[in-house]
């Protein structure tokens, strides 16, 4: 079975937030909800300073703590490694949002829209991705696109090719090769969740 994963090259990320916008368009997420977001990191002290950008989202962990604590089975891990939330089973207890060390989950306390009383064209065109009040949601690696043979929207959109997506179990795949790069690290390994997202750390510009 494949294990879908992502490698994000921090040296290539320019902080344009195109991935965030693409995700919001593709999944018609609620105002304030960003399944993927780009954090700005400023390091060092003058004159040795550096600004980096760190895209963050669900890490689709191999040992997901969110799945472990879910009392209903709504949070589950598919055989291909995707960690998903079945909205029909979610009761909105928020245990998963607290168990996730990567803060990748959002609880929809109430449904909102950008234009009250009116859906945007993106919202109207995606009835299957209906967001349900009182449930938790998160990045799905664009599972509907994967099932259609496409890449996640953030990967397709990234103008600098900072994001790479594929099967980590396939030793010849691009993501598998990149995940073995000396610069490749899993985020916050102390949690022991074995994330399926790797970061390629940036080089220092001398």
């Amino acid at each position, binding site marked *: 079975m494949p294990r879908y994963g992502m490698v994000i090259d921090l040296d290539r990320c320019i902080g344009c937030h195109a991935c965030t916008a693409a995700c919001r368009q593709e999944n018609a997420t609620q105002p304030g909800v960003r399944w993927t977001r780009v954090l700005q990191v400023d390091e060092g002290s003058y004159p040795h300073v550096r600004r980096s950008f760190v895209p963050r989202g669900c890490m689709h962990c191999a040992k997901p703590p969110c799945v472990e604590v879910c*009392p209903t089975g709504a949070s589950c891990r598919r055989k291909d490694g995707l960690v998903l939330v079945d909205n029909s*089973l979610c009761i909105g*207890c928020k245990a998963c949002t607290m*168990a996730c060390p990567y803060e990748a989950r959002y609880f929809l306390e109430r449904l909102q829209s950008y234009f009250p009383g009116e859906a945007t064209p993106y919202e109207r065109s995606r009835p299957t991705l209906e967001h349900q009040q009182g449930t938790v949601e998160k990045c799905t690696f664009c599972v509907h696109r994967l099932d259609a043979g496409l890449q996640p929207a953030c990967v397709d959109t990234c103008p600098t090719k900072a994001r790479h997506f594929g099967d980590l179990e396939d030793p010849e795949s691009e993501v598998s090769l*990149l995940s073995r790069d000396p610069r490749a690290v899993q985020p916050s390994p102390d949690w022991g969740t074995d994330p399926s997202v790797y970061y390629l750390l940036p080089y220092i510009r001398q």
Partner: protein
Amino acid sequence: MLRVRRQTDWAWKVAIYLGLSSAGAGAYVAWQGLRALDATWGGSGRPGAGLGIGLVVVGALFILLDLGRWSRFYLAAFRPGTSWESRGFLIVSTFGLLGLLQAGGWTLVPGGLDILLSIPVTLLALAILPYASLLLRSLRPFTFWSHPLQAALSPVSGLLAGCGILAFDPLQWISAAQERTLVAGITALAVIEALLLAALLWEVRRSGPAGLASVQTLVSGETSLEFWLGAVGLGVVLPLAIGAGALMGAVDSDLVRLVGAAALVGAIFLRHVLLAAAHRPTELTFRGLGPWGIGGLSPLQDPDGASSGAGGGGRADRVSGL
């Protein structure tokens, strides 16, 4: 230093659920314990034990109110294999059902039903006492909840509030001698709780940025008023002061009931502040580099530069052939 953020997902409703279930179970366990030592408690402690069972049921309603979709609450029973929330749902609901059956039997079917149900209901009550700490411990990002002293504090707090419920004695069935026994128990448990709380704060503040932030929030931050007035004042100091005074002189029934009510309210405040003060790290860390963005530059060097640091090697795009 690692940046941290206070949790706000679980607040008063969850605190009331955990506090009441723990206190109610504590009342039942304390009643059964006292009953085992002195048979007269079998009758006189029933109002308090019944109140405890009722409070567990009422507490369960609060967790329903906290759910995003409460009408599907029954789904929470589906994953007892891995989820402490699921286990808690099963344990608390079964305790509530069997406990209500037992309490109903006291008036309708005296005798047999009480003996039959006492053992399973006591076992369930014993399971509820440490439940809050086990549930919170399973949420790993919060180091404050993972500290081993939390596992001791939870049952002690439940037993203290449980003795308070028995002392509240809604029907005033317990005797003056029994009141004295309860006051002695409450005083001893209040001392133990105070020591545990102090030790917990002392230990947690040294456990890292999240622990330090939790302690600061409790002692002098956003939840300090609830902590000092509610959890410490009502939950520890008042029972301790009145209890110690009563033990030295005559036991006044009204004061004993006041102590009981204060212990219960204090336990709920304690649960609330323990929930509300928990902090979690918000930054990613990478092996060997510490928190991202804090603490200096990455040791990795550009291959065009002179050196290569932790595992530094060829560029990624060379490896991938891009």
